């Protein structure tokens, strides 16, 4: 029972790291980016390829799993996304679906359609006892890493100069620009960091979520659910939503396997009926 809870929390935390970039672009900047999973996939593939082809240790690949998608994200933001911030939501949906299709087939073409497998280092395998509850070492590792990331992100958003500039730019672009804040640069940086975090999440998630070319399509819905349920005020809402989804999904698949993924969608629809703006809505 508690093991399921811990598994669920680890899963939820992973979902949050994957979706946190989307929480900012979609939640704060109001850009519907269905291609977010493509950046996560990039991170996952970086780790898998570095480990399997060049024998780089798991932990050493993680910085690259962050940097490569981050650079790709920065490039894509400057060349493509920046043109679409002011366009209709339909345009954004079409554009990002197009990107997903391209990412899925390009990955299939380059690396084949099979699952990418990685061998975790020995000290992350197996289980240990925590007050008598067996806990997977990798799950515990995920919880620790993701907690650090969550707290770090929250501090950056709320306590630093960059964070307040970002919030200002999101709330009112024109006024922020008038105050001398470099809105374009801030958006590009944020997008890059979001993509990098997605990549990191993808790399951390290979063991749990798997990694194959259809990853962006398969998990797109989960990311979107986390952000829409979470609401669009900050990172706390999506974090709670990710935990609910994580625990709900793991528990659902364990106790009522015949229902399967059904539960998650039902949960989302019910939450959206009760709170259309998400769990934590902007006070107006």
């Amino acid at each position, binding site marked *: 029972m508690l093991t399921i809870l811990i598994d669920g929390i680890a899963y939820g935390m992973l979902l949050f790291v994957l979706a946190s970039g989307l929480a900012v672009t*979609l939640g704060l900047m109001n850009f*519907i980016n269905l291609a977010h999973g493509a950046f996560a996939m990039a991170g996952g593939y970086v780790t898998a390829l570095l480990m399997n082809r060049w024998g780089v240790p798991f932990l050493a690949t993680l910085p690259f799993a962050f940097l490569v998608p981050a650079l790709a994200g920065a490039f894509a933001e400057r060349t*493509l996304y920046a*043109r*679409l911030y002011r*366009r209709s*939501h*339909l*345009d954004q*949906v*079409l*554009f990002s*679906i*197009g*990107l*997903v*299709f*391209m*990412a*899925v*087939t*390009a990955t*299939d*073409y380059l690396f084949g359609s099979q699952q990418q497998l990685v061998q975790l280092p020995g000290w992350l395998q197996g289980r240990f006892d925590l007050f008598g509850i067996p806990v997977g070492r990798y799950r515990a590792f995920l919880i620790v890493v993701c907690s650090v990331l969550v707290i770090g992100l929250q501090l950056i958003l709320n306590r630093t100069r960059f964070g307040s500039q970002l919030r200002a730019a999101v709330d009112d672009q024109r006024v922020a620009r008038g105050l001398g804040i470099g809105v374009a640069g801030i958006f590009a940086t944020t997008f890059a960091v979001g993509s990098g975090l997605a990549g990191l999440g993808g790399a951390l998630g290979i063991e749990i979520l798997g990694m194959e070319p259809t990853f962006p*399509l398969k998990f797109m*819905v989960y990311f*979107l*659910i986390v952000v*829409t349920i979470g609401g669009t005020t900050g990172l706390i809402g999506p974090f709670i939503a990710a935990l609910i989804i994580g625990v709900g999904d793991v528990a659902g698949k364990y106790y009522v396997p*015949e*229902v*399967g*993924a*059904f539960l998650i*969608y*039902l949960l*989302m*629809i019910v939450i*959206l*009926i009760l709170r*259309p*703006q998400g769990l934590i809505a902007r006070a107006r």
Partner: protein
Amino acid sequence: MPTDTLTQPPTAVAPTTQGLHERALRNLGRTGRWRPAEFVFWALAAATFFFLPDQHLLLGEIAILGLFALSLDLILGYAGIVSLGHGVFFGVGAYVAGLISIHMTGEPITGLLLGGVAAAILGLATAPLLLLRASDLTRLMVTLGIAMLFYEAANKAAWLTGGADGLQGIWIDPIFGRFDFDLMGTTSYAYALVVTFLLFLVARRIVTSPFGLSLAAIRDNPMRANTIGIPVGKRLVAIYTISALYAGIAGALLAQTTMFVSLDVLAFHRSADVLLVLVLGGVGYLYGGLIGAIVFKLLQDTLSTLTPQYWMFWLGLILVVIVLIGRERITGAPATLWNRVRGMGK
């Protein structure tokens, strides 16, 4: 349009209400009038039946996809509802039509209508969810969520739907007891084309009616539409239900003409594809879906013969390029060109 009375100088004699009424009627009549190009379009469609006998299978698919895209155009182009889960109505229509042929009757028209009605009921039941403080994002997620829900349900309810194996054993009787479904797809194409044409006529009547015009008002500015007395919520529910009916009939057509239903009809890519089809053809003028279906199927046909596994890549590229250039500029290009040619003639 009647608004030009507002720009007249105040000294001009105000037209009587009687005159205004007549002018409004005339303007309404003009939007509903058939243009020559439309006759040409349908004449060409009918001609394909006689002159392209080898292509009837492909043409039948085009007609069905066109009808499906038309149903999406009713909500997206005329009422401004963005949906990522329109495929659910298509899938429900297909499954219901398939089940009816197995358990009740093989008579095609019954299956077609009941498939459509089942989808319409689902549309009516889920439409209120779209009105929840409707932001585009909530709508996208709710439609997507419902579609995923039904996909999972159909996957798990294998006793009813055959699960991942699909629904087998569908047999459709000849239409009106006379026209047998053949392997070449000739009957199927005629059937699909006639149904699509009839439903197109109805849709055309709907969007040029005052009801259709009120939808356009809602699309352009829901708040203003509300203040001039249009019941926004009811109208949106109504058009969503009609659109679901259309999508359900398109799904039923597919089930009947292929005599097979698989989980694929409920998959996410159906909803994404139909959006793409509509965008290729242009949103908001009914022919968009039909033209888009032709372009899409021809593209799919050529691209998948060139690169069987990777044609999705080119599809994605086309989408990205369309959005970057701007949808209005692409669909507006013929009109702009035509105006320029006419302008030179003067």
